[in-house]
């Protein structure tokens, strides 16, 4: 093997070979303008992409001012029939993975027996409704003191534990109270999934994607942000056949949710944790924290 490559200090007296250090330096100097030109061009393209994208981001129907709204839900568990239309509608509207164990919203069945035992179940998140023949196993009708359905969703807390545990601030809260996930910053550590006291979050599996087209990040109920900013109801509230999910703007005293909060006796879940949820419940019994 001839010495076409020299490393370290060259031997004294050795003639310069085909690829000497000087040659490498000259080639490198020539390459720098090419590299920086490509870099600047790509930077410029990225910026122009942003400009185009920004123009398309405005929702149809004009500008939307987040700070003017304060979205909230009232779930009336005395009316909910557990049909599961809401769960199915959410999956179709928000491209939630078809896996029955991954739901942005779900319906629980609470059965309180006469001996004060409580059974809570949520088969497939309640998406198939409650089959007519199904009752809670081994609980006869006569032994049931009370039973009701509880629709569950992200509480969009006013003091959300998920936002302050995120190490890279990928989860944030908008001015109108919705907690969203920046799918470009989420690192998939799962801290927010563990931190949520209401179990509202899940990590998107690799086979499926969020509507943004990303796997491996965290997803959660967004109160159908793409709908409420256009003046529509969230999909679950839209399709509820009995109007058990009352949605509206608390800033508007005449909205359905403000009226419901005033007229019904509402409370939140797990008030002792200090999360101050935006989803209120009426008709719950004491077994629900």
């Amino acid at each position, binding site marked *: 093997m001839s010495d076409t490559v020299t490393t370290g200090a060259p031997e004294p007296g050795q003639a310069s070979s085909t690829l000497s250090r000087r040659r490498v330096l000259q080639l490198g100097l020539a390459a720098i303008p090419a590299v920086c030109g490509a870099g600047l061009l*790509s930077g410029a393209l990225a910026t122009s992409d942003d400009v185009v994208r920004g123009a398309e981001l405005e929702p149809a129907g004009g500008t939307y001012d987040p700070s003017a709204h304060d979205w909230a839900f009232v779930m009336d568990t005395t009316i909910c029939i557990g049909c599961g239309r809401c769960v199915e509608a959410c999956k179709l509207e928000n491209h939630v993975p078809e896996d029955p164990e991954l739901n942005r919203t779900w319906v629980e069945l609470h059965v309180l027996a006469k001996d004060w035992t409580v059974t809570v179940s949520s088969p497939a998140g309640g998406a198939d409704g409650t089959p007519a023949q199904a009752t809670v196993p081994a609980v006869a009708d006569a032994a049931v003191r009370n039973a009701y359905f509880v629709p569950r969703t992200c509480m969009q807390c006013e003091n959300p534990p998920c936002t302050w545990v995120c190490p890279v601030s990928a989860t944030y809260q908008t001015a109108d109270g919705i907690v969203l996930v920046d799918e470009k910053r989420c690192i998939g550590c799962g801290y927010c999934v563990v931190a949520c006291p209401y179990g509202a979050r899940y990590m998107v599996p690799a086979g499926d994607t969020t509507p943004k087209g990303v796997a491996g990040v965290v997803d959660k109920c967004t109160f159908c942000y793409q*709908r409420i900013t256009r003046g529509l109801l969230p999909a679950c509230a839209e*399709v509820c056949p009995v109007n058990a999910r009352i949605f509206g703007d608390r800033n508007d005293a005449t909205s359905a949710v403000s009226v419901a909060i005033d007229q019904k006796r509402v409370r939140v879940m797990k008030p002792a944790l200090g999360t101050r949820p935006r989803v209120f419940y009426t008709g719950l019994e004491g077994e629900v924290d």
Partner: protein
Amino acid sequence: MSRLRDALGGDRAAALRSAARRLRPASPTGLVKRMAAAAALVAGLAVALLVLGAAFSAFYGEYGFHPEENARSWAALTPSYADSALCQRCHQPEYAPWVASRHRAVVCESCHGPLAAHAAETSPNAPAGSVVLAKVSDAICVACHGKAIGRPTAFPQVDVSQHYAGASCLWCHNPHDATAVRPPDIPHPLDRLPACVTCHSPAGLKPVPAGHVESSDGVCRTCHARPAAVEVRP
């Protein structure tokens, strides 16, 4: 380097001078070469910093802290469910009885699924039946109206196994006009009788009511085998 360190204990000035003397080039051309090399290095560093800055700003645009922009991107997603008032524009025959019926709280999309795309792509002059929607199955009726624990007792629900099992809900019920249509009472029991169709053929004793399924006895008995006194709660 070691020579420098040795010199640190000794005459520092002399050591620095001897080191500087070694670094100084021996000839003018050598000096020019070194100056050119130094200038190229400085220029290269400046350009490299510029490139890094451009890349960083593009990168920061992607990964930096822009919650408002991300919120706007969430708001820009396309809804799949439309406003149910849209359905009225083309489907007035179904809409009119529905909005007056007891199903008026059940919006169209609750049973018919997301229809924003359908509403957007159907032109007002499209012939009826040109857009195929999946027919809603009976299971969707049972999902709400099947008797189940936890449903409010005031809510209309039936035990499906006791309520004309095997029959389709749509044979008797019109979901767009949610009043139950009950089959007419027949004053004779059906046990040990000749086949229904002996008497009830279109030319026989009693005309078969309009809309009645005409086939073998088995189909008749799915509705008519049970006493008509099964109450459906209002």
